[in-house]
């Protein structure tokens, strides 16, 4: 039987797995499903059509699934840590999706219909706008703002106070508002098991494409790099992301 505090409110219709823990003064709405091993601490609100996978830890004062207009849906994968005061809006049309193994720190906000990949770490007060797409292994620093509908490529680091106002490339360090690409996120790539060769190739590509000053990537450099015969697969992915309007272009 789930360990539910006598002070918690679990509406009829909510489906909680057997080993879920629910803290005091937490509200679980009627259309909510919570997977095995989840810990929902005190004063949390799970509203709307919210589905939590297994082994998630939701800390006090979070609000998940409440929507600005009408009921919305949130689908959360496994083993996420959602810290205090985080709000995840429910998507009224498309569900808001959060992958697995993410750490979403205090006071972050994930807007309606946003897609968050796997293994991301959002530092405090990161705001992910509605409909934004965050790929895997993203790291953000404090007070980062990712605007509505923007895609952030995998393995990218977003520096503190940055505003991502248009699509951001993968593997990058971006900083400022409007953001500029400041280099390759080599530290994170190393941690994620990238080889030295890949990192070196990426560094060369970044050096050619982004000069750290202009907002736009260099078209000439992209053309030149993509003509190369034995192109590094990581670099190919980077170029594809940039060319596909997925990064660097004004939106």
């Amino acid at each position, binding site marked *: 039987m789930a360990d539910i505090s006598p002070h918690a409110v679990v509406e009829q219709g909510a489906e909680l797995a057997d080993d879920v823990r629910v*803290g005091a003064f937490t509200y679980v709405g009627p259309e909510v499903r919570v997977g095995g091993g989840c810990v929902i601490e005190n004063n949390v609100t799970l509203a709307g059509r919210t589905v939590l996978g297994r082994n998630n830890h939701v800390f006090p004062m979070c609000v998940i699934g409440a929507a600005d207009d009408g009921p919305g849906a949130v689908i959360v994968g496994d083993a996420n*840590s959602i810290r205090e*005061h985080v709000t995840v809006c429910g998507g009224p049309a498309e569900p808001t999706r959060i992958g697995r193994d993410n750490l979403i720190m205090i006071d972050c906000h994930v807007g309606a219909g946003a897609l968050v990949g796997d293994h991301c770490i959002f530092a405090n*007060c990161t705001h992910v706008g509605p409909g934004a797409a965050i790929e895997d292994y993203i790291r953000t620093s*404090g007070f980062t703002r990712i605007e509505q509908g923007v895609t952030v490529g995998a393995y990218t680091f977003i520096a*503190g*106070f940055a505003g991502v106002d248009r699509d951001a490339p993968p593997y990058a360090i971006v900083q*400022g508002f409007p953001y500029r690409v400041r280099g390759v996120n080599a530290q994170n790539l190393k941690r994620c098991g990238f080889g030295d060769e890949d990192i070196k190739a990426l560094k060369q590509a970044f050096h050619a494409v982004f000069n750290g000053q202009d907002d736009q990537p260099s078209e000439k450099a992209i053309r030149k790099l993509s003509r190369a015969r034995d192109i590094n697969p990581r670099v190919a992915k980077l170029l594809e992301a940039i060319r596909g309007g997925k990064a660097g272009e004004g939106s």
Partner: protein
Amino acid sequence: MAELTVTREIDPSARIAPDAVIGPYCVVGPDVIIGPGNVLERRVSVTGHTHIGSANRFEEGCVLGAVPQDLKYRGGPTALVVGHRNRFGRKVTAHIGTEVGGALTYVGNDNVLLDGCHIAHDCYVDDHAHLGHKVLLAGHVRVQSGAVIEDLAGCHHFTTVGRYARVGPRTPVRRDVPPYTDFYSRDYNWLPPAVQGVHEAGIRAAGLSQAEERELRRTLRELFDDESALQTKIEQLVNMGVEGEVAALCEFCQRSLKGVFGRHRETFRGRTPPEAGERMPSELRWALPGQ
């Protein structure tokens, strides 16, 4: 206490002074000690080995003693200690320490922490500090006495904000802020913040003697009007003989210069900082690594 049937969840093994006020929808965990005269307003959550002194005030939605947001934390019994007469604004969060960082997060006395502040694992906030709205302290940060950090500023891991210094609003603090200085950036988008002058209110608040104040102002001008060759200038000053606040300022800057990226506390990375041993209350000393 003339309270109505108020819903709150207090663990029977928590030790709470009889005159402490615990508001509705508060949650207090088993290893918590709450001293006399504390006021926990509505929806305050206190867990972990959290020891709260006396006469503090915690406003709505504070979360104290939750586990650190640090992937190094292994779930050990670490502590959060809060002194006396602090004001915690709404939604302030303070975490317990990590095993490798000294196992202690510490907030001293008479501090004001406005809404949304975050005191991360292994931070030390001394006395009489003022943290504006949503000031984020990353892990292992030390805020010394009398420092003022304005709204929305964020301190990087292992930074120190010196005594009676001021950090401007929205400032990313990536290196140590020397005592009595005013630290901000002239162009937040592209210029890194730097020492921009003397924190006048801080010097007044410190109540220095006239001679000491004159000497301190002269030193601050000399060191920070042009920050080049800081090391040499400090060495010259120390060789000529300094005392009191000026000596403390020189020592602070020298330590920062010896640290990594201008952060003295980086030298404590992966080990217990000296503050942990000094400030861990005797009943929690077992939590110190190596005890």
